[in-house]
């Protein structure tokens, strides 16, 4: 398995410096949420439909918060399922994947999309959707990698899809993890508490900073900026381009992180 390194560049690094070096403007949580909501929806590189079906829009502290809040909402680790080849965090929690075709009926599924093993949707995604329809399985999507993706098509209106979490941190913003959970119905969980219980000044600093950053970083910044470079590198090295800016299929058909080859490593400028 390749060692994934989140890409960054001088522009993204300077956004952080800019935030720290200038006087920071306060805006209310509603404004911050609206800016982030618009930013996530404004991707032109991906085709995400059905936003209007996700009536509950809540700020999060990123996709890990989305996952943990989901687990709390399910009342524990035994009350949801995952697929194989998932985010390592689930393995740390002792979760094992259920194969497609063997999903447990009525037990909610959390799934990472795009999935870094394929740098795309899962190849079995359509089968997953069908099985979930047949077995009354709610789907919750961790879309942490969507900001670095192109050509990802998702219809959030699908009746099984109940929520999706997105985060800004893959734009070198791990130092200020913020995201949005879109859901069709709220449950009592951590994100609901942060949005509906701690309603005064909750995480103002995080959210103001996130709003400041996305006002300066175009939604599809990585692909808009580095598509040609990625294409040239793929041609030169006989790699197959994927839908993740920093992932390719290598010569031996293995998934490979090319953050350093693109000159976008954490110490590249």
């Amino acid at each position: 398995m390749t060692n994934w390194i989140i890409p960054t560049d001088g522009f993204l690094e300077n956004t952080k410096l800019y935030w720290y070096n200038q006087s920071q403007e306060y805006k209310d949580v509603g404004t911050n949420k609206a800016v982030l909501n618009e930013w996530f929806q404004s991707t032109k590189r991906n085709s995400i439909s059905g936003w209007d079906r996700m009536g509950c829009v809540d700020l999060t502290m990123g996709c890990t918060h989305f996952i943990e809040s989901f687990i709390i909402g399910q009342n524990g680790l035994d009350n949801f399922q995952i697929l194989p080849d998932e985010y390592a965090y689930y393995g740390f929690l002792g979760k094992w994947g259920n194969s497609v075709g063997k999903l447990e009926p009525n037990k909610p599924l959390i799934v990472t999309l795009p999935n870094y093993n394929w740098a795309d949707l899962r190849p079995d995604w359509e089968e997953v959707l069908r099985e979930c329809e047949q077995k009354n399985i709610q789907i919750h999507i961790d879309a942490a990698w969507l900001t670095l993706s192109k050509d990802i098509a998702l219809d959030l209106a699908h009746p099984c899809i109940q929520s999706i979490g997105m985060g800004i941190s893959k734009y070198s913003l791990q130092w200020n993890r913020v995201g949005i959970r879109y859901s069709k119905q709220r449950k009592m969980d951590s994100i609901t508490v942060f949005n509906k219980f701690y309603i005064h000044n909750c995480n103002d600093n995080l959210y103001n900073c996130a709003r400041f950053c996305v006002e300066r970083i175009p939604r599809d910044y990585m692909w808009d900026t580095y598509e040609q470079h990625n294409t040239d590198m793929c041609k030169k090295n006989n790699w197959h381009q994927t839908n993740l800016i920093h992932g390719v299929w290598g010569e031996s058909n293995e998934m490979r992180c090319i953050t350093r080859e693109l000159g976008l490593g954490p110490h590249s400028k």
Partner: protein
Amino acid sequence: MGAEKVLQYSKEPTSELIKFQFVFSSTYWNTPPHIEIAIDNNVYHSGHLRHYKTPIVFTVPLTFADHTLQIKRTGKTVEESKQVAGKWETQSCAIESITIDGINLRNILWSRSTFVPVYDSTQSGDAVVNGELIFGYNGTFNLDFTSPFYQYVVDCVRGAR
């Protein structure tokens, strides 16, 4: 892919689908207690309890508004109680737990529910008993709540209700 930027700002939903989970406990030597569970006067379960534990689960669509959960307990008559070797054997009925939208209500039941007993001609007592989950008498358990349910819980914890 070049999808056009189309912002689809959605309105917050106006209803939700809520799972209700009940666990009743019961003992009897003759006939089991009968319960009828209704929300806003719509009956979602009606039947006798089993010995010891009876779980009941159903899912209900709720509009974002005020609602009332009612549990009507019947079947307790004088004939259900008898003395055996100096001890009373009778028909008992109690709520062990009510879990709504995944939240075990516990303290909320204790502090916000009421039970209205139906006394027979030989019995007397309070017209309304607060927080009673053990139904020695026939009667009706009531819990007023609101939807969205998470907001009701938040408001209860915050003391806004």
